[in-house]
């Protein structure tokens, strides 16, 4: 990383700013009709709390005309021990499910004076990986939780929200440029969230999940690997015995590039601490107020794309319109890389952090 600069260099405002850290976000846990919320708005929860039950095989079940009270509303829970009140109008074989003597589901819609409910078997717990406050619960839509702490945002997250101890690994050298190979994974990494560096493939992700790793943070995830992983994830969801939640956070995009220095510095600071990966929005959330994280030096820029992609240096001022490879004329800025003489780089290829 380049040396700190006290005064903002001229023209640095032209470089788009990418915030590194923000307040912890409001996290959405999506619910489908039939899923059951176990929390209510305003409730304070700690990390690991089971906040909902998600139905794996929900189906529509029609109720008899007298099976519901007059003030029934869509989204209400409905329970009864009277099986004869229900008749299946959806997928054949769907059964009502409940605890004790009651069986039930969620009121879906009313038609011709009869209600249909969403009900089914095989509920699966939904755990909240962060501490926070439940802001909103909407049956069939989702639960919103205001997380406590701070967040480092990525561009995309796949899988499920998960938490674990952040691990930079020990044998991969510079974690900014690292690549995760399936063979380098073992059960000793179970319960961790791994910072991979620049590249990971679907096979390594699948193996990591099988080994009990709780999540992976990577700079770039290629489209093919993304698609293969999502297919594997879909098969896993369909399996009878699910593995613990596993999340993948992509920091930059789809092509290979090292993790940005200022972001890597944050991850190094968090190494060994418990963090959570959230899917909506895609972020790492952590609640360690004691941690002091230094902002990137004013004037520090990173080249996001092009010939010098991944390089980081110091902004030295606007360079005006320049012609670049391919014959395109682009607004450029002078950037000092590795202490060499400044070179012009398209401003649109640069980003700064703050």
């Amino acid at each position, binding site marked *: 990383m380049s040396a700190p600069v006290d005064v903002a260099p001229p*023209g640095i*405002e*032209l*470089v*788009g*700013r*990418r915030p590194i850290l923000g307040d912890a976000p409001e996290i*959405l846990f*999506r619910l*489908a*009709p*039939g899923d059951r919320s176990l929390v209510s708005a305003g409730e304070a929860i700690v990390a690991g709390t089971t906040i909902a039950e998600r139905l794996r095989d*929900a*189906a*529509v079940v029609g109720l008899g005309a007298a099976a519901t009270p007059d003030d029934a*509303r*869509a*989204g209400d829970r409905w329970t009864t021990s009277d099986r004869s009140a229900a008749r299946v109008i*959806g*997928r054949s074989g769907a059964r009502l499910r409940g605890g004790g003597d009651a069986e039930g589901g969620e*009121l*879906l*819609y*009313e*038609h*011709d004076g009869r209600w*249909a409910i*969403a009900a089914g078997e095989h509920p699966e717990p939904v755990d909240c990986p962060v501490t926070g406050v439940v802001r909103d619960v*909407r*049956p*069939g*839509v*989702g639960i919103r939780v205001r997380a406590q702490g701070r967040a480092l945002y990525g*561009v995309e997250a796949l899988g499920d929200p998960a938490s674990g101890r952040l691990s930079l690994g020990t044998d991969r050298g510079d974690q900014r440029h690292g690549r995760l190979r399936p063979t380098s994974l073992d059960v000793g990494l179970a319960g961790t969230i791994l910072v991979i560096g620049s590249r990971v493939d679907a096979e390594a992700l699948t193996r990591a999940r099988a080994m009990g790793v709780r999540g992976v943070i990577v700079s770039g995830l*290629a*489209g*093919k690997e993304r698609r293969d992983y999502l297919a594997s994830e879909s098969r896993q969801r369909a399996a009878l015995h699910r593995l613990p939640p596993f999340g993948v956070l992509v920091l930059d*995009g*789809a*092509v290979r590039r090292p993790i940005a220095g200022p972001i890597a510095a944050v991850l190094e600071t968090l190494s060994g601490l418990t963090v959570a990966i959230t899917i909506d929005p895609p972020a790492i959330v952590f609640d360690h107020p004691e941690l002091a994280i230094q902002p990137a030096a004013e004037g520090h820029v990173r080249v*996001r*794309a*092009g*010939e010098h*992609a991944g390089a980081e240096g110091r902004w030295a001022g*606007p360079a005006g319109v320049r*012609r*670049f*490879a*391919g*014959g*395109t*004329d*682009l*607004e450029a800025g002078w950037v000092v890389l590795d202490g060499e003489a400044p070179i012009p780089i*398209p*401003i*649109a*290829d640069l*980003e700064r952090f703050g």
Partner: protein
Amino acid sequence: MTADPRAFLAVDVGGATSSVAIIGRIAHRWRLVGSLAMPASTPVDAIAVELIRRVAASDPGLAVAIGLTDGGRPVDAETMAAELPRLLGRSAPRRALLALAVSARALGPIADAARKTGWRTSTAQLDGTDPLKLTNRILDPSVDVLLVGAGDPPGADERRRLSELAGIVAGAVARRPDLTVLLAGAMADHLGRLEASSGVRPANRPGELLLAPAATTGDPPGAPLRELLDEVRGGADDPRRAAGRITSALADVLDRRVEVIEIGFDGGLRATASPGIGGEESQAIVSIAADAALLPPDPDDATVDRVLAWMTTPIDRHRLRDRLRELRLWPWSGIAGDGARLRLAAARAAMAILVDATPEQSALPTPDVVVVSGGAFAVAPGPAIALAVADVLRRPGATSIAYDHARVLGALGVIPDASERRQALIDLVDDVLTPLGTVVIPAGIRAGTSAGRLTVHAETGSSETELVPGALEVVDLPPGDVATAEFSFRDTVRLGSRGRRFAVDVSGGLGGLLVDLRDVPLRLPDRLDRRRELLDAWQESLWLTRDR
């Protein structure tokens, strides 16, 4: 600054691009003094400051003339940028609409109306769909607006299940009070049921429950529904919403049939207008298609195929998919090298979607002027843009192509007063439209060694060119020059009318005069490598700034 400003900023804030132009009053006319476009991540104020600095540095006299001074002292760009009046056009954010009906027959017209008014549209029908899946679709938090439609009166195929559909919608609306619901046609009869199910007074409900006309009413059919959908999409200062006004004004000012094609980050636009006749105001036809965005949020296989079909560099599908995902995430990054060509290939694919989505506008007479706009073209050389338009908009005739390089038209469109807008356009039209050239496309050229001869009579002299079937002939004609192109074809062709001999007035541009003797519509080899070679050969002559 005086009370009567001599300069203002025209600002266009798009999904991926922010553009600032300084418009100054010079010799009793508004003139474009300078402009600067940057990624949307760059603050508009920073762009304005840099632009003012450049104007002041490059021509201090001009800066003084348009009032960019601080009491005679050297200009303080930051203060000036904050003080200058701004004309702001801001693209409305991308919004998603779910069109819902009982049957596919009823769904078609309402989905079509939504697709032409800028909504990212998905569809669902009750017939053949599990009510649970349907409810899930409605409850998806990414859906902003629900359009539920039925015929008025409802058709026999939908009458029986309308009540069930209303029940499902009412059940979903009760859970999502934030959802705006439009009930079109006979669905309006179920408003009371939805109001009752929402459980809150309409005034306290964040989303709205609105009645909409049926998709088949109005002249042309669907126009009133489209108007309402456009209003609901919102964006009072959205340049796309103002496109009809500025296109009509442009047609009147130029006294030509005008078509505006805009490809942006979140949608594409096609607006067509002819000059008003007999003192009547010009009327524009406007279609806004979210599907014609430079790229969809998550480029799928179909998108990869569409862009790959226009690529001139060899690239495998996986790598192209990654490049497109990156282009969507960071639309201004990686332009150097072959990035500009990739963007233009994506722009061609988007234009093709736009043209496919607007057949009624394609059926209109060939426009005299096509104005190209939008961030998709921001970094491409002018002649390459002209060829991209000729590749996709294949209508026989002669068309001048111009480029809204400073993105000022959108901002001018949001001027509410028609006469002010027209006056500003009269002053600025020559500055804001960069002439890219004239494209002449004759249809009906037969294969052979020669299609005929072209003689161009320009002020600087005459030139003759042999016309080869299937080729692109480029005649150098600089911006500002006008000429007469005399065509003598071997066989009868269509060029406005049918005939063998034509004399066409043409105007110059960065790409000169482009005589396009390729097929109408364009036919390309199925094999990708041969297709690529052919596209590259055509573009080679027009990518004039290509670095080798």
